[in-house]
């Protein structure tokens, strides 16, 4: 089974802090994604990565950056956390050349609160 893990389930940070959210997948997937999920707004794509050292902006990249130095790990960075970044953050991975090429596998999520 594909496993996507996220470093924290719950995180509380102060305004202005630099925040790192880590995501690791164990199935050698090339594609990885970061979403945020807010009530009434659904899933919104922040950044995605087709492969190592590659990154593309999603629909709402402002205030975020990402890092993909190794294939299995995709990090989301909040350079200076703000209260409007309080949200549930979801990481996903996908294998573009396997049997289930259209399936995204999601991690359990990190609920971030910025005070």
């Amino acid at each position: 089974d594909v496993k996507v893990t996220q470093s924290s389930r719950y995180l509380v940070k102060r305004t202005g802090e630099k925040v790192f959210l880590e995501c690791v997948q164990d199935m050698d997937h090339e594609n990885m994604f970061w979403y945020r999920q807010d009530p009434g707004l659904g899933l919104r794509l922040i950044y995605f990565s087709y492969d190592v050292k590659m990154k593309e902006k999603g629909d709402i990249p402002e205030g975020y950056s990402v890092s993909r130095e190794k294939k299995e790990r995709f990090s989301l960075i909040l350079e200076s956390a703000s209260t409007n970044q309080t949200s549930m953050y979801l990481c996903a991975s996908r294998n573009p050349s396997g049997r289930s090429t259209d399936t995204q596998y999601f991690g359990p999520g990190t609920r971030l609160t910025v005070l």
Partner: protein
Amino acid sequence: EDQVTQSPEALRLQEGESSSLNCSYTVSGLRGLFWYRQDPGKGPEFLFTLYSAGEEKEKERLKATLTKKESFLHITAPKPEDSATYLCAVRLASGGSYIPTFGRGTSLIVHP
């Protein structure tokens, strides 16, 4: 304007009371439509992918169908453990990009 619209936003059913969730999309050139289940405080879990009108897929009490502009997730004789948020997403054929667009979800509660 949302490209993917799910209805209803919330649905309450009694155990055993069958119903359907709807996912409609306005985009053309559909490459695939996906259904996910999400339990509270957890990440979405993949259920089905549909590619062409007329296609159907089943899993236990769930059956997904696809027409040219919408998909239905039919829930037959639901049980309380079917309570969850059901997400729909679509992927377009153009551009070669794999970036699905998600709907806002339908929250289903099944009462015993």
